């Protein structure tokens, strides 16, 4: 039964490009290697589109000639992939061991309280998604977190309200200087 996939044209273009860049005709022929770059393709697709909803998975299944069930299985297995849209800004608090022993847990709890969401959730206004991640490799600055691509380090729970300000949350009464650690975008 032909299955018509309802997908935004700009998404399908993006996916076509990603699939073409990751597979060579030779790989298409060898069944053993067909799915080998699937994770790479999913990762790039998510980077382009933001998340991996069902129609995107179905489109990929069709394109790569892999059962949708298998793509779904892979998507839901790896924590890198999200099937839900994420907020405008992604807050990723490092919960690696070094950060944890230096109080990352309290910082995380403070974000949960301030934003009124739990790990993995997005605020109602879709401004923030809160997540925990593993060692960012910046243990020297523990505890560390990233908001989008910006890295912040040497934090305490009372820095939390000020951290949210540049991203559109109301300022608290007194703005304290926060350690911003990289200036690249």
């Amino acid at each position, binding site marked *: 039964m032909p299955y018509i996939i309802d997908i935004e044209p700009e998404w399908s273009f993006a996916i076509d490009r990603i699939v073409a860049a990751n597979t060579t005709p030779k790989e298409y022929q060898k069944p053993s290697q067909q799915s080998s770059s699937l994770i790479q393709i999913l990762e790039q697709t998510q980077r382009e589109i933001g998340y991996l909803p069902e129609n995107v998975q179905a489109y990929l299944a069709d394109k790569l000639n892999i059962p949708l069930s298998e793509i779904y299985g892979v998507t839901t297995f790896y924590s890198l992939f999200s099937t839900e849209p994420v907020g405008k800004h992604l807050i990723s608090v490092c919960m690696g*061991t*070094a950060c944890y022993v230096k109080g990352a847990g309290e910082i995380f709890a403070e974000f949960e309280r301030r934003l009124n969401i739990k790990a993995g959730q997005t605020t109602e206004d879709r401004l923030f998604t809160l997540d925990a991640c593993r060692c*960012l490799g910046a243990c020297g600055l523990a505890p560390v977190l990233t908001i989008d691509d910006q890295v912040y380090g040497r934090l305490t729970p009372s820095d939390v309200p000020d951290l949210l300000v540049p991203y559109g949350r109301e300022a608290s009464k007194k703005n304290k200087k926060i350690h911003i650690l990289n200036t690249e975008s």
Partner: protein
Amino acid sequence: MKIKTLSDLNQIKKQSVEAAAKRDINHILTVNVHQGTCGAANGANEIYDVMVRQGETAHTHIIQTGCPGMCHNEPLISVTQPGSPPSVYGHVTPEKALAILDSHLKHHAPVAEWLINRNPTDIYMHQHRITLANCGVIDPERIEEYIALDGYFALAKVLLEMQPLDVINELKSSGLRGRGGGGFPTGQKWEFTHTAPGTQKYVVCNADEGDPGAFMDRSILEGDPHRLIEAMAIAGYAVGANQGYIYIRAEYPLALERLKKAIHQAQKTGLLGDNILGSGFTFHLDIRLGAGAFVCGEETALIHSIEGKRGEPRQRPPFPAASGLWGKPTLINNVETYANVPTIIRQGASWFSSIGTEKSKGTKVFALAGKIKNIGLIEVPMGTTLRTIIEDIGGGIPDGKRYKAAQTGGPSGGCIPTDMLDIAIDYDNLLAVGSMMGSGGLIVMDEDNCMVDIARFFLEFTQDESCGKCTPCRIGTKRMLEILDKITSGQGEADDIQQLESLATTIKSASICGLGQTAPNPVLSTLKYFRSEYEAHIYAKQCPAHACQNMLSYSIITDKCTGCSACARVCPNTAISGKAKEPYSIDQNLCVKCGMCMEKCKFDAIELL
């Protein structure tokens, strides 16, 4: 530039060495800006840009390098004047960097007050850098710099002078053991893969680095990627494989980018591809991305993940050496394991086996972090004592606190208490005290860390990362975590410890893969050495370290409170109230125990009981 023969390789080395000699003769200053992930997060890229824009002259040679391992001082630069050892500067800013350059150029002298190595030979005291030898020294994006330091000469030696079995024998007699956790003898693994029947074989590098507090593999990938490429080509030749895969986690964007560049350079020069150095040997290398699943570091799960499937482990045997990727014989080693190989080939097995202890040869890289002054990456000979690492290299515990424990082996390991500080670290000694080498995370904890909470932290990790395939791991770790949650929130009951121990035994013996088999270790080892802390939580409903938030209450010391209202203003839940200039008080029902009031109070008027 094509490198088709050994003399081409020699030619490149000669050119680079001559260029360096010329810089020496002309008194040209070499500046290494250390741009690993940690450096970049601290602003090293900006420093590099400013230096190149404003400091690049005919008298300077400014290069970007990887991490030299001194994370606590980031961002770092090293300045080398011909004829003298490098001056290393920490906490550099763009302005400082230009001032440093100026001082070296005009006065031929370092800026003493900003130096972090007053005594230049001291920085790597007690260390022996083999796998990290080039990290922070060479520009990882230029293959010539690797070649200048004898890079790819081990590959040349292997391809042109040695038979595959010679290579394997050399590795076997070196005594090298796997650095990814298990410590399996590397030469033996290569031999199994070599003798396994079949014409199509694969070599794989495990760069998943799942231990949530370890970053040594990343540092090698970022600082010296060609070392890995060379080693994998050597492995391919030894076991009879023409295709290699590097499985690297997607969370390491910089490492990935450097690795891609390095592979591209090696392909372009002909050090990867067909007929390498005219030997007739062909080797291709591809990258596969990990996508955030700890269990994918386990070798059978990793294989499934490379195949593009869910990363679930399977029962062994068959081991990957017999049946791995797509059912073919596959060699899997860790990044650091491979990183030792070129040096072993060049310097010989007997040189390597002269370092370390009887059963653990060579060195080990540790990611030293937590409550320690000198956070960073260190490489020490096997058999170095924990005390040397913590006190001499690590500089001890900051803020005058007392050492409580060191945790090695990540979520599979255990804690080493104070009275065992003199343990000589190698595979067997760590196992004997209930921990393990693991991949090399070494987290130091002080008196403020609660050991029950740490055990809970690791169990939460393994529980979360359990792939769910086998019941003991999926359900067992969940039950253990529930008990630990209960204990740390003050609801512990008398038989909880016994329950934990019995669950631990079952999970260890009945899980399919190493994740489950080792998941109870953090609990068992803390129960062994810090049982009294568990008991204090359960019977006295107290957390001796004052770390378990649910067992604490904040209160205001009326004698000390000046009524400044700072605490009330910062409280997220308006639990604090009072009149100005009179002592405030905390409503325990509203308090969410965030600790912000205590942090804000300038008069030490808030206490934690």
